[in-house]
């Protein structure tokens, strides 16, 4: 594998999305080629950097209240539908 071949499949290699033989060729290439090794490391760092810039936020408190109301609404619907002879939706259990 040369540098051009490595560049072409680097993304798949880093994502773990290449066949075993390609993976092995990539691994042996970067052991010998410092430039491609650095390129691969920079690529990984870019992805890590991107992840760091996207920290998790806490969902708004209103979500829990909404869920309670949603379940209560389901229960109301179920009572009405059961009276009409329809199958239970399961909210009241």
């Amino acid at each position: 594998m040369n540098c051009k071949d490595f560049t072409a499949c680097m993304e798949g290699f880093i994502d773990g999305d290449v066949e075993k033989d390609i993976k092995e060729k990539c691994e042996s290439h970067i052991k010998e080629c410092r430039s491609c090794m650095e390129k691969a490391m920079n690529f990984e760092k870019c992805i890590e950097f991107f992840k760091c810039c996207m920290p998790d936020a806490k969902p708004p408190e209103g979500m829990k209240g909404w869920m309670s109301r949603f379940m209560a609404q389901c229960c109301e619907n179920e009572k009405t539908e059961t009276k009409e002879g329809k199958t239970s939706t399961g909210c009241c259990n």
Partner: protein
Amino acid sequence: MLCQIKIGCILFKIKFVYIGKGTNKVKNKKERFLSLFKEYESKIYNFIYRMTQNEADAQELTQEVFIRVWNGLDELRSGSSPAPWLYRIASNVCLDSFRRNKHTSKDKPLEMGDESLYDAKIPLIEDEIYKAKMAECIKGYIMTLPEDYRAVILLHDIEGFKNSEIAPMLDISLDAVKIRLHRARGKLREILSKECQVLYDKKGEIYCEPKKKTN
């Protein structure tokens, strides 16, 4: 007579067992739903928030996701991982919303990005003061990606799904996932290299700051 009583008993038992199973199924549905909500509320909210970059939209669309989850819970086989199914619903809800509200990006189909960022020889700098600003910056850049590309890069690089898992979530081919991921990353690199000065701190972690504008 005895035979009729026996048949009656058997029918009663069958009916009893049937009702019992029905009740369990129904009870399981509520339990499964609440358990999914507990485990995935934050994950789905964050995915949608990253897609929309708007808290109110994220809250409303997360609720829509869970309404669809409740209505379609029977589709989820017990024992199978719920994550791909939930993210499929979440992606659909987001993309439907973008289409409804015409939040479409005006970007042309993405071209290949500039590879130079990977080759750059970047000086080591220890200052971390810009990290919060940097995060804001990146969020803005993410929003410049077309929604379907944004969905792929978020599902892959942030949520950690494989390309083969993303393809059925978005109803696109595996090759389409790979192309979109490659182009979305390329586009981000291009914006970064154009708008930002990319640096490494002492630990070798990458960070950036806006390039100074010259008049």
